[in-house]
């Protein structure tokens, strides 16, 4: 099970928590939102009312439009 521990640690290192917030979904349902960075991606995680999770991934870009993949 050493691999599991390694992977958990790696995940912690790769994710950069940006703090959570609560928002209203477009359809009106309440959602908890948490934002993290992962490599070149920004991740927004929403917990829906029925208990399922929706994750939105967005490619972060520099001001000049260049992707940030090489930074990770």
């Amino acid at each position: 099970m050493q691999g599991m521990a390694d992977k958990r640690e790696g995940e912690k290192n790769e994710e950069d928590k940006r703090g959570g917030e609560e928002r209203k979904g477009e359809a009106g349902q309440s959602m908890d939102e948490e934002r993290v960075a992962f490599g070149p991606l920004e991740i927004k995680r929403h917990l829906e009312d029925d208990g399922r999770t929706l994750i939105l991934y967005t490619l972060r870009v520099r001001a000049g439009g260049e992707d940030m993949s090489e930074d990770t």
Partner: protein
Amino acid sequence: MSEERFNELRGEPVVYAIHRQNRTFLPAEERCPLCPTPLAAQAPETEIPFPAFEIAVFDNLYPAFTSPHGAAEVLVYTDSHHGSFAILPPERAEALMWVWRHRYQELGAREDIRYVLIFENRGVEVGVTLHHPHGQIYGYPFLPPVPALELAADERLGGCAVCILLGRELKNRSRVVYENDGVVAYVPYAARWPYEVHVLMRKHRPSLPDCTTVELRLLAQGLQSVTRGYDALFARPFPYVMVVHQAPTDERRQGHLHVEFYPPLRTAQKLKYIAGSEQGAGTFIGDTLPEDSALALREAIARAG
């Protein structure tokens, strides 16, 4: 809740997820649950209630596996209803590799998941029920038979089977259809499907988190080149099953990241069926030699660019 049983004669698990019988089946575009929030008030609610998005992952409404006995997720490539993995903008395809990596790590860290399988079913010929470009991710609470066979091949060959097979293909070269600095794609020596292709990492990388940023980009490029070549082969959308094979997540047993394509077409209009010999004896009977398929695919990939 799904039920897992063990088929003693086959020596394999079978999962019953009877709630999936009622899952959404080939809805009209205006009722697609993978599109962003519809503008029409009378339209059904989407699974992704946002006016736009890039890539989305959500728990499958009709899951084969659920926590604490695994996971089933839907991975939506784009908010556009039309298109395919092959023609995603390159930066989106690369971002998708990072999403795969994230889901592998996060699901793989769970105690109830032993194997993470990322896959895409493309085309009604392989049973797709939603046309919107998307894939799926299953977190299995057990090690499934096919990945287990790959690990057994490592033991049988006395090392990483994928590394050994890659070395043979690069020496022979007659079945190689595409390569870049990060990946090599070939029709396997003993392919089961007429146009089966495996896309392998050149270097021994057990899983996506072991890849460099550049390797992820090259993997995306390789996969898009192969799928564009598929579409060019018969000048039609080419159905396939695409699966990502990686190391099991419950222990550090060695796997080798590679992507396998199982396309069912044997000609532009004819399907290869899993029939008597394949089902009853477990022996595939091929109509096409892998070397001939590779030649046709090489030309198609070159045409597609």
